[in-house]
């Protein structure tokens, strides 16, 4: 018997009990729809986190100076001045896993241009920031090493600051005043948006870190923190170890002493966020899978009813030459068709609700081709799994008893 004949007979049988077929399918439709919607939501959230991490620079580590300890009371990271610019230079030269470094220094300040003013963060880095944070300059240029060396009063603006101060006019070459000191605007950074913690990353003015130290921190020589770029995302852990070892050496710490600095690996944060996400997605998807399971049991139930209702038909078919295998494939194909059709409709429902959710609630969703394929294969597999027992029961019937059945 050709596959088309089998499918034709199955479709005809399902068509005879339209309402029943649709109700049975509903279990699968809702199950597959829920799985697709949940997985899409999860994938969307994951994609968002990944994008944010990538925006921070996937290979980056943060190094903070140590905490102050006085009579047992400890301050937070950065409260003790243990790091110097030389520490950062040493990381670059001595740690093979480190590709780029930038000390950082920051302050809050009122910035003024003409009659406009705005309060923003002034963040000092060296010339490697665009590479380190994967942050492009879209207008003008970033400052270079000589600006850092001379603590030049140059500024690169974030999008928010640019909009607040210049509202459309070209900022390049203009002079703004930060804490009453004139700074020349030499570039504008690309838009980064909000980070995962809701901070506007574009509300920033970037200057050489030396400028911040000299002009706003009364010439301090220590560095509160800095960012380090590893050679690759995988090298972040090696970089973390190498930096720790180097700084312990340079700070002459004995084995019993705690680190007087902290190295934070952003990949760790990314992984933690990713793991949280995956757990949530897994949880939601498994709840959805339970409804799929219930749908599958519904299929089995209705197929058992169909088999006992059609005992006479089975007997007739056997009498005219259907082998047990023919009967089995006939009922199995009905449940597979039922489940696959349910799967396709459920897919439409799931994609539809994923789009609806992102439109209504503003949550990001991502319908991956994988999840589509998996849900279709899975619903066919449910058809086989839950259809097999009823089909086997039909195939195992004795033709004489089946023909006698009223």
């Amino acid at each position, binding site marked *: *018997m050709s596959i088309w004949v089998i499918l034709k007979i199955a479709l005809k049988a399902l068509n005879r009990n339209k309402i029943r077929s649709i109700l049975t399918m509903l279990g699968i439709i809702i199950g597959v729809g829920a799985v697709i919607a949940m997985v899409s939501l999860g994938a969307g959230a994951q994609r968002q986190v990944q994008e944010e991490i990538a925006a921070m620079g996937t290979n980056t580590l943060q190094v903070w100076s140590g905490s102050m300890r006085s009579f047992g009371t400890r301050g937070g990271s950065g409260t003790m001045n243990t790091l110097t610019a030389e520490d950062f230079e040493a990381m670059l030269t001595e740690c093979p896993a480190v590709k780029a470094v930038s000390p950082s220094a920051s302050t809050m300040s009122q910035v003024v241009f003409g009659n406009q003013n705005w309060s923003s963060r002034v963040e000092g880095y060296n010339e490697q920031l665009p590479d380190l944070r994967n942050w492009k300059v879209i207008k003008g240029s970033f400052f270079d090493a000589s600006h850092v060396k001379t603590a030049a009063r140059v500024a690169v603006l974030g999008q928010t600051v640019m909009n607040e101060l210049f509202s459309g006019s070209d900022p390049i070459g203009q002079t703004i005043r930060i804490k009453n000191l004139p700074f020349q605007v030499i570039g504008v950074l690309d838009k980064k948006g909000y980070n995962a913690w809701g901070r506007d990353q574009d509300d920033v003015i970037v200057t050489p870190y030396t400028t911040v130290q000299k002009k706003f921190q009364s010439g301090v020589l220590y560095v509160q923190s800095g960012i380090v770029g590893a050679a690759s995302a995988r090298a972040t852990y090696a970089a973390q170890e190498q930096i720790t070892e180097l700084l312990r050496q340079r700070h002459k710490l004995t084995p019993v002493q705690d680190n007087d600095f902290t190295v934070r690996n952003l990949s760790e944060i990314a992984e933690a966020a990713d793991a949280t996400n995956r757990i949530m997605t897994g949880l939601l998807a498994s709840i959805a899978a339970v409804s799929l399971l219930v749908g599958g049991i519904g299929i089995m139930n209705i197929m058992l009813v169909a088999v006992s209702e059609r005992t*006479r*038909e089975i007997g007739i*078919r*056997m009498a*005219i*030459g259907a*082998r*047990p295998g023919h009967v089995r494939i006939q009922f199995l194909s009905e449940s597979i068709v039922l489940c696959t059709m349910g799967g396709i409709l459920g897919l439409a429902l799931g994609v539809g609700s994923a789009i609806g959710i992102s439109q209504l609630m503003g949550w990001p969703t991502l319908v991956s081709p994988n999840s589509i394929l998996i849900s279709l294969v899975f619903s066919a597999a449910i058809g086989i799994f839950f259809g097999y027992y009823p089909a086997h029961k039909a195939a195992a019937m004795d033709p004489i008893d089946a*023909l006698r059945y009223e």
Partner: protein
Amino acid sequence: MPGEEGDVEMPPLSPSLTGPGLAATHSDASAVIALQEIRRVYDLGEVQVQALKGVSLEIPRGQFVALMGASGSGKSTLLNILGCLDRPTSGIYRLDGVDVSTFSPAQRADIRNRKIGFIFQSFNLLPRTSVWENVEAPMLYSGVLKAERGRRIEAALNVVGIPEKAKALPNQLSGGQQQRVAVARALVNQPAILLADEPTGNLDSATSEEIMRFLQRLNREKGITLVMVTHEHDIAAYASRALHLKDGHLLSDEMNPSSHEQA
């Protein structure tokens, strides 16, 4: 089954070899059905019921045989075995020269498909399935190609005289018409034998006569071997030979010289 006589077997009576007027034509080679000492024991747990206690007979090609007996005589069991729906506990059944007594369920399905056509008392057409598709069904299991299927369905519906009903559903047909569809379905794979189980049991007397004449003509004109179970003597009278079963034994085997005049 009631009326069991214990384990003592009666010798099989008058095998068809000695039947009047047929002795010369009977041989293993020409017999489409040959049974040797067929027994069927139903194991009902504590008791064993012997439904057939050693039946031997031969049916030559082209014969119209009526199988008679009271209920419990074993005639249904014999028909099930002849139709390869069941298999004997012991004995040999040769159908069209092939020993089918030890066949598996799948093999028996193939034999039913290619060698046997069934006609039932209650017609047993597939419900809510058109006449065309009912007649087509056996060929789907034997893998006949579509064009050939169509040709054979048309031919079979012509033979049974209802070519105009191809699109109809069984419940739109009269009892006689339904039985004709069943005959068309039984014929469509060109079987070696037609087995009819009380084919007129659900029909009024006028329609019964019509169907019986039709079956008789099929037997005469197309040379189709027919084995028919019935308990009515006037229906059995259409057959050319009558076998009587009682308590699992073949009681009598008679030729019916007058069956020709009934046509």
